[in-house]
């Protein structure tokens, strides 16, 4: 097991929430594992800020420049006159550039989502299937042996049905 930590499993959200609050008072950093999204801060946890909004902007810029180069370049590389239209026709370039921009934005957004949610993650680490299967809620604390003891006690006090050590 890669990480040293303790995972407390709760059957009810209320219990997990109170446990989270208790840990917070104790000043212990913890992570919540759930099988479905809960409103932010439902367990008194705090989630670090993310930089997702940067990704689509960067992606859009990349896509835009690539598309401009491609459309302008291919028209000028072999200047064939068609239909009396200018060799460098702006409106068609605008259309393809638009698509390129959006493609870049989408690709980078997906990358950003994976990166910001720290995926892919080679090892699952401390985890329990019943989180997705039964809707149990896991509260995970990483740290040294000395810390984990009291944490485990807090978790049990607030009704953890099972404790996993790693």
């Amino acid at each position, binding site marked *: 097991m890669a990480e040293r930590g303790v995972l407390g499993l709760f059957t009810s959200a209320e219990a997990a929430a109170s446990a989270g609050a208790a840990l917070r008072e104790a000043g212990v950093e913890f992570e919540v594992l759930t099988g479905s999204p809960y409103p932010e801060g439902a367990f008194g946890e705090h989630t670090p800020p993310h930089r997702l909004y940067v990704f689509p902007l960067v992606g859009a810029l990349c896509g835009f420049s690539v598309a401009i180069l491609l459309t302008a370049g291919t028209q000028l590389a072999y200047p064939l006159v068609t239909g*009396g239209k*200018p060799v460098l026709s*702006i409106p068609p370039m605008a259309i393809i550039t638009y698509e390129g921009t959006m493609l870049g934005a989408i690709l980078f957004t997906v990358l950003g989502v994976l990166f910001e949610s720290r995926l892919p993650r080679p090892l699952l680490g401390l985890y329990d299937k019943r989180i997705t299967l039964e809707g149990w809620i896991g509260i995970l604390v990483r740290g040294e042996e000395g810390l984990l003891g009291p944490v485990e006690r807090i978790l049990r006090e607030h009704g953890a049905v099972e404790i996993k050590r790693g």
Partner: protein
Amino acid sequence: MSEARVPSQPATPPDPQPARRRHKWTMVVDLDRCTGCQACVVACQAENNIPLNTEAIYLQYRVIEWIRIERYWEKHGEEVRARYIPLLCQQCDNAPCEPVCPVYATYHNVEGLNVQVYNRCVGTRYCANNCPYHARFFNFWQPVWPSTLENQLNPDVTVRWRGIMEKCTFCIQRIRRAQREAAQEGRSLQDGDVVPACVQACPTDALSFGDILDPNSRVSRLAKDKRAYTVLKELGTGPNVIYLAKVDPYAPAPKKHDHH
């Protein structure tokens, strides 16, 4: 933006490549002389290796006639008159068929010709849809000739393959030959050096061909005729085939859609 330079009188479109232009090939069709005899159609068929238009092909509406005689009826009071108009690729300056081709299989060359590149063509048939003159023809089937006719194929002209588009080229092979010969004799092209098959075959001399840039060529003179008009002018395609209206008490003034 390039469109900002749109002239307010675009009936005569801007010449996209004036610097490199040496010729601007033009045909003049005098409808007053045309009898609808179809000699031009046959001559074109023979010259340009056009597949045989059998009865079956006709029934499939898949005839290939680079030049064809459009027949329509004009009704004037009681009497109804047959009218003919030979239609071929108008070699438009603003050809609608050119920009829609995704693979540059058709484009405008410096001599004002709308040329078709057979081995680029993938057969999207978009150009045919966008040709207002129905002047583009698609090889729905692999062209075949009876063995007796194989020797009559014109060696100067490509034999097309199924799945590609073709159309009148103003007999570009004859233009090139004339240019070669002129070059060999060390002179410049004169008016009348280039004679496309249809022009050559026309018994009533209704068709004439030449370089409109040469001010005293025959087509230049005819183009100044007051009967001169171009078909579907309102589309602004800028055709290089100029028609001279029929002289006829009933003939409508040369204006758009005189087909009624």
